[in-house]
């Protein structure tokens, strides 16, 4: 792996260069919070940020996305015949400053969109045309727990380039070919040698700042039905839950969607929208029966999916990268760390568990 040095004075210049081939997305402060947004001409990413309030998953997987389109004009040929929209662009894009935890959510989501049986063309095309220029995390939040969720502040395995802020310059680890291509286009070629130790130290420093963690060692071993029936976990948590979709919408790894047909004027659109397992409509059957008709069932589904079903099915850790957004933004303080630890420590014999957040 190659590491280069990007002087912050050359940073802007490089960005201007890659603008020609990439559309750029980066952190921008809007009102109170940072979001990932398209960078207009001349606009620079604001790299002095903790993390965006909402996860940047929408860059590849938009909240509402037109997937098919048809005419609603009876005289036209494709009247009520759905086709892929011709104007859908998959221009090369680069995301600047994405945090490792968010990048680490991509392989998780990919497990859903890229399977042997089914490949989601929209997600994959968007993913393939995206180059991720990550920014290693030196000041994690108190509610971050990436290190115990299979990610980490310096985790570069799902990035194409990882930047490390080093005062007047960035150290950039070029991880993939995509990354290489971008660095070339930007003209960042200043190789930094002999800094492996320093990076390792920075990494362990950052990791040591992660104060909280989740215990996941026991999750796979827990009998599924026991967890499912662990009312001591679910009852109190479900009480506070208001079944809003905040946690799922801010989560980088939640992938569920709903498909809706809408008519605008003389055109019809098939739109894919994020859905949320917190909503009563999520599993509502046409018969009006709802297998997850209660708040408790819905809340349990969310955590069981992330922390048990996923674990069992993919054997690849939990469906969570520890970004901590749901912890910070849940209006009623339902804390995935607490729930995870409860599930991990649940003793079916005594029906008790440890309700700690550490």
């Amino acid at each position: 792996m190659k590491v280069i040095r990007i002087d912050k004075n050359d940073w802007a210049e490089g960005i201007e260069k890659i603008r020609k081939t990439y559309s750029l997305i980066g952190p921008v402060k809007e009102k109170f919070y940072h979001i990932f947004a398209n960078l207009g001409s001349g606009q620079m990413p604001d790299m002095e940020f903790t993390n965006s309030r909402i996860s940047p998953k929408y860059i590849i997987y938009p909240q509402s996305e037109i997937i098919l389109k048809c005419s609603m004009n009876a005289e036209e040929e494709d009247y009520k015949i759905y086709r892929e929209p011709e104007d859908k662009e998959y221009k090369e894009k680069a995301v600047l400053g994405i945090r490792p935890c968010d990048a680490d959510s991509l392989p998780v989501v990919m497990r859903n969109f890229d399977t042997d049986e089914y490949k989601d063309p929209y997600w994959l095309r968007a993913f393939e045309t995206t180059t991720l220029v990550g920014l290693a995390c030196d000041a994690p939040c108190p509610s971050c727990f990436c290190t115990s969720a299979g990610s980490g502040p310096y985790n570069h395995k799902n990035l194409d380039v990882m930047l490390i802020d080093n005062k007047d310059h960035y150290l950039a680890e070029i991880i993939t070919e995509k990354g290489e291509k971008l660095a070339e286009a930007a003209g960042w070629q200043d190789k930094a040698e002999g800094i492996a130790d320093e990076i390792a130290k920075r990494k362990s420093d950052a990791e040591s700042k992660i104060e909280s963690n989740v215990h996941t060692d026991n999750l796979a071993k827990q009998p599924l039905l026991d967890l499912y029936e662990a009312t001591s976990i679910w009852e109190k948590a479900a009480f506070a839950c208001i079944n809003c979709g905040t946690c799922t919408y801010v989560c980088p790894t939640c992938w569920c969607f709903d498909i809706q047909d809408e008519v605008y004027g003389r055109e019809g659109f098939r739109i894919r929208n994020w859905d949320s397992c917190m909503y009563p409509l999520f599993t509502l059957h046409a018969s009006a029966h709802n297998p997850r008709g209660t708040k408790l069932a819905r809340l349990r589904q969310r955590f069981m999916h992330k922390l048990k079903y996923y674990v069992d099915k993919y054997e690849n850790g939990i469906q969570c990268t520890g970004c901590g957004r749901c912890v910070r933004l849940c209006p009623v303080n339902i804390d995935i760390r607490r729930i995870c630890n409860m599930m991990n420590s649940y003793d079916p014999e005594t029906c008790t568990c440890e309700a700690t957040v550490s």
Partner: protein
Amino acid sequence: MKSYTDNIKEISKRLLKEDKVDMVIGYRTGSVPLMHQPFFAQNQEEVDEFVWDSNCGLNLANYITDRTERIGILATGCNSRNIAVHIVEGKIKREQLYIIGIPCKGMVDRHKLSAMADGDITSVEDENNGSITITGQNFSKTVDKAEVLQENCSVCVHRNPVIYDELAAEEVTEQKRDDVDPYARVKEIEALSPEEKWAHFDDLLSDCIRCYACRNACPLCYCPLCFVDESNPQWVGKSIDHTDVRTFHFLRAYHCAGRCTDCGACVRSCPVGINVRDFTKKLEKDCLELFDWEAGLNTEQRPPLDTYRPDDPEEFIK
């Protein structure tokens, strides 16, 4: 404000012990700052988890809808008014409730405080002298609580509960409408031209992700099937198209007309910090001006839009 917490614990323990109630609904300390969790206690140990300070901003009336137990519940001014609305609308019976009244000095605005902080807040100290200290990894700041109150609290004219069985503290002095103008912000918007108004709300809602936290945090939104979730007919599109987003907010607000107590739960719960109250406060003002009505001040009268009286104002008909 220790005394509040202690009194609450004491009352709750007594109620449970005397078997007056099956549960007491209050708050417990949250795992992150500014975020206490609505929580119910069924025994003495659980009562010990109770806490009360200026981070108890969600409306507890949201948690009693259609419950059948005998419930002890903490209620500030606005919460108690929502309980009254619940009683009027048949969502709970007065006999089921033991209302522990909390004279309220306002809740702090978590959005405001986070924006003030240089980094993440790790702890919040609610001093009794009316100041708030926020501490993070590399900073500590003390601010006047009045400055960081939720906007609805700073213009609140019903801080004391309107119905209760017992008070957990002495009543606080009410702010008068002459001193604070609850509708200052509404008036600002009213003064804009239609184009500016449209633009204002476009901007206001531009961040909305339609997570429905505002709706779900609202005690008034208890319909088994919300109009936005209806699919036949589908009143509102489900995407984040701005027309649909606005339709949702506008109609939700309208459904709350004459019922909203400006508890601020919608704003507090919004993950992206939208001031949903720009809709609801206008309706509150209209109800006051047109019908001399404030929501939830008694448990008998129905809100004005639920009833018809021949003397209802009808200036809008030309």
